[in-house]
């Protein structure tokens, strides 16, 4: 379970550009939830994910994961049970390492990075098998550098890699935004499959309202640092793209756009 309690986040505190994004913000994500997050640009979606992962500091509040307040834990430690895929496909892999080396690194997450060989030869067959489930032909070019793959191929690999080792939470920030419609669909289906199979609690930011409606079991809409819409279970299942779009327009009108 992820719990954000009374979070206050101020950007550039003390400067003329000071901006309070979150004031007393709270949100609870239950175990097993697959939460889709929608909202206009600048509504604070990425900031919220960054707060959970510790990429940015907060002024006030508690971040409780599995019952423990991790607000003071450094970013890298938090990723022991969190996996994350970014919008930019080049964030999820190391460009000058080969596919195999990338997989081996991900495979060793949580383990010791000592002086034993980086790539365990016995695991290569397993990597190949995993890659072949993507249907992108990556299993045939495991010795080429990840940097020479297309964005979609890299994103698929990134998703596979973050979920290779057991994690409790998966954080996805517009992870299909840079992909063509077909590859985006493939990555979405893969995401759904992994989240279900491994019973991961997932938070997914998306601007694609159809994905928000079709996938997951809870949807929230954010605006100006607040949650303005929150539906789960059967209510969520009954929500349509039209509903979300209507709400979007309503909010925009309120803001005078």
């Amino acid at each position, binding site marked *: 379970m992820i719990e954000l309690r009374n979070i206050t986040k101020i950007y550039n505190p003390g400067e003329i550009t000071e901006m309070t994004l979150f004031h007393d913000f709270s949100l609870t994500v239950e175990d097993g939830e697959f939460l889709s997050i929608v909202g206009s640009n600048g509504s604070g979606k990425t900031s919220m994910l960054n707060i959970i992962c510790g990429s940015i500091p907060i002024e006030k509040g508690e971040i409780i994961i599995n019952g423990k307040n991790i607000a003071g834990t450094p970013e890298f430690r938090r990723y022991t049970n969190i996996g994350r895929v970014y919008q930019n496909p080049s964030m*999820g892999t190391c460009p000058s390492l080969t596919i195999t080396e990338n997989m081996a690194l991900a495979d060793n997450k949580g383990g010791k990075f000592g002086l034993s060989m980086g790539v365990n030869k016995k695991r290569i067959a397993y990597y190949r098998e995993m890659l072949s489930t993507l249907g992108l032909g990556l299993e045939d070019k495991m010795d080429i550098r990840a940097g020479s793959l297309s964005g979609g191929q890299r994103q698929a690999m990134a998703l596979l890699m973050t979920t290779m080792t057991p994690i409790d939470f998966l954080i996805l920030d517009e992870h299909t935004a840079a992909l063509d419609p077909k590859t985006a669909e493939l990555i979405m289906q893969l995401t759904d499959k992994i989240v279900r199979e491994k019973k991961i609690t997932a938070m997914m930011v998306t601007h694609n309202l159809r994905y928000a409606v079709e996938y997951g079991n809870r949807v929230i809409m954010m605006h100006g640092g607040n949650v303005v819409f929150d539906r789960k279970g059967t209510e969520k299942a009954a929500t349509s793209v039209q509903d979300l779009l209507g709400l979007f327009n309503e909010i925009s009108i309120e803001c005078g756009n």
Partner: protein
Amino acid sequence: MSVFFNTCEVFLESGFVFSLIAMGYYLSYTILDFPDLTVEGTFLSGAVVYGLLLHHGVSPWFALLAAFLVGFLFGTLTGVLNVKLKIRPLLCGILVSTMLITVNLVAVTAGIAGDFKGETSSMITIGRAMETLMEVFPASLLPDKVSGIGLRNVVVFFVLAILLKLLLDLFLKTKCGLLLRASGDNAQFVVTQAKDAGNSKILGLAIGNAYAAVSGALYTEISGSVNQSMGIGMVVIGLASLIIGLSVFSRVHFMKATTKVIIGAIIYQACLTVAQKLGMPSAYNKLIMAFIFTIALIFSEYKKHGKHRAKHRERKESSHD
């Protein structure tokens, strides 16, 4: 003919010795993208430690190991300044190498004459009374010269360069080395692997400087002495060798980067030696060094132009999210 062989001997010796700095730079500059100025200090530190230990009758092999460790230590310091205290890379190098000017000086005067004020002679002559690397097993098994041409030094330096190259290659294939390459490539990725990318960076700088220090230690075997200005110009020598090696063989894919770097060091030293043999006074050394480096840079930038711009673009894109 013997002039030719003598010239070869000179640049091969120094080429192999300086290739160690270049290999260190391969780690810190190419892999970690860290322009490390510490080597000017650690090169000399290596020489100082080696010279002092030899002076006190310690085994040259042990002295070499000690030089490695001292370089490792000061490299760690540079890394800590950058990673933990967030000081910019160039400044970290300047700080540590400036500090080392005093450390290296006092280490010699204190180590030789017990003078902690640094007022006595700060030079160590590797005299005949000392047992050098070339005079102990296994180097001593080799003939010093074959028909008037020096052999032993070249062979010993060659074997050491290859050995350290293989060690570096092997290290880069271990889990630890893989993580280090990853932190140079994509630090955020390492963070999401629940690892502190800073630690890998510190380790990389430590190893890079350890190599520079061993290079300094071996250089005393060529120069026959340790003097306080030995470290000057080592940044240029290391970077020039690295960049020449990597750009000349940029299209050769079967060759390991570390091999290219060794050849780069030899090419660079060959150019310098030839310039000297052609009658260039030794006072002009550093000028020629910088000149050849400039040519190498222009050449490699020209070649890499397209790639550089692509990389720049990619950085810009990633800073958007």
